[in-house]
């Protein structure tokens, strides 16, 4: 009989009476101290690289007056982070030495994450596409119901909190003092180097609050039967677009 049940008495293991544990028997891997130290050093090195790369990108933008595409920053940082994460997983979390099923579990988890991210990006990336047939149903959004603060009885301000708190501070301390404060506070020591400014050779986007952005009122619902030549949507509410729209209207007729 060569079945596992016929284990001979001298090798009989009380904890493994059927001799089936032999299949799963393995020695626990002990990572060498040198490996651990080396991995730590590599991880610290990559940390320096990722910080250096970010500083380098800023330096390039500031001194060469060249604006790098936004994705460069993300791709470089995420690639380095992925390498670091792989090292941690393989050597610190012992995936390289442990039961392969653990790696399978983790990879399926990453697959779920990838699906999550992929379909979200698919949606986000096509938000700007409006089917021409449906275009007339699209209406301006709004930011109604915003309160100043977290309390339920805080006043409804119906404007961006950023604007509300800015105006309140200006009202409290006066515009001179506000600018004085802003001067010190908005050039934090932390700041990622100097902010490049637009020059004759290069125009750089300055993020900020577009004047009138939050004062816009929703346009009247579209009326298919309105007489031709009526002012286009939003022309009255959005003076910035009015000059562009005005010549277009007579041209149509």
């Amino acid at each position, binding site marked *: 009989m060569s079945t596992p049940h016929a284990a001979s008495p001298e090798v009989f293991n009380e904890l493994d009476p059927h001799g089936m544990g032999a299949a799963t028997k393995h020695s626990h891997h002990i990572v060498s101290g040198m490996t651990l130290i080396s991995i730590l050093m590599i991880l610290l090195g990559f940390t320096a690289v990722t910080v250096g790369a970010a500083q380098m990108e800023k330096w390039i933008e500031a001194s060469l007056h060249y604006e790098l595409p936004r994705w460069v920053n993300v791709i470089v940082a995420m690639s*380095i982070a992925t390498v670091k994460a792989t090292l941690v997983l393989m050597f610190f979390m012992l995936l390289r030495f442990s039961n392969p099923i653990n790696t399978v579990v983790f990879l399926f988890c990453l697959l779920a994450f990838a699906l999550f991210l992929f379909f979200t990006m698919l949606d986000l990336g096509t938000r700007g596409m409006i089917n021409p047939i449906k275009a007339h149903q699209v209406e301006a959004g709004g930011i109604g119901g915003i309160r100043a603060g977290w309390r339920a009885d805080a006043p409804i301000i119906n404007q961006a909190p950023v604007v509300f*708190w800015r105006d309140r501070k200006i009202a409290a301390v006066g515009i001179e003092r506000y600018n004085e404060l802003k001067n010190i506070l908005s050039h934090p020591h932390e700041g990622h180097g100097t902010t490049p400014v637009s020059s004759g050779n290069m125009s750089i986007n300055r*993020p900020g609050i577009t004047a009138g952005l939050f004062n816009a009122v929703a346009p009247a619902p579209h009326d298919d039967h309105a007489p031709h030549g009526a002012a286009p949507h939003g022309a009255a509410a959005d003076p910035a677009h009015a000059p562009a729209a005005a010549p277009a209207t007579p041209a149509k007729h």
Partner: protein
Amino acid sequence: MTTLDTRSNPLGADVQGGATPGWKRYIPGHHWRTADEEFDACTLGFWLFLATEVLLFAGLFVGYTIMRFKFPDAFTNGSSYLDWRWGTLNTVVLLLSSYTMAASIRAFQLDRQKQGKILLSATFIFGLVFLLIKFTFEYTPKLSGWFIAFDPALPHYASLIDGQALGGLFKHVEGYGGKAPGQFFSYAFSEDPWEPLWWSIYYCATGIHALHVIIGMTLIAWCFRRAVLYKAYGPSHYTMVENTGLYWHLVDLIWIFLFPLLYLIH
């Protein structure tokens, strides 16, 4: 995680004077054929749990992606309030702690009890340092405007100090605070209307991460206690300290991605 089983729990009569270390007295659960099988099953179970943890953070990362995609300027601006040097220091601290954790598992595998305990406490201390940096130099000033007196950023705002507390240990800088998430936001000098969104993402991501650091530190403290009380871990049995290590490395793993995404964007 270790099954709480009166038969295999070494906290018994031996605690009072037994010389046999806990890891030698450990008997695997009766439903396992071998100790190795038990170890494998525990570790597999823990990896499944880690997968759910990754998916928890996946939600945050996807939220981050959506918001950064829609409001890139708010994120660039928001990130410029963070000091990349604190972020880098915290990354180094966490990497060191990951190393000491891995090294302590190695020490227990080799039955170097003292070394293992020292490395476990080092891991705990690194975790504590991480939290202290986060709360003292990052969260507190940004939320409230209160700086600790020796904050290296404070001299820059010397002209704006308008109050102090606890005998000058904390100093208040006018206008600095209020960088709070969402509806809590009340900072008056923002450059972008969507900055409250950035702060929501920032506090959610780092807050949940900090919570995991605290949980990991609790597990480490528990391992330490078991190691001190009855030498619970040794060459043939170290499941709990191994799984605690896996949890701790996951915390490090999450931070490896959070750090560039929050601190290094421009």
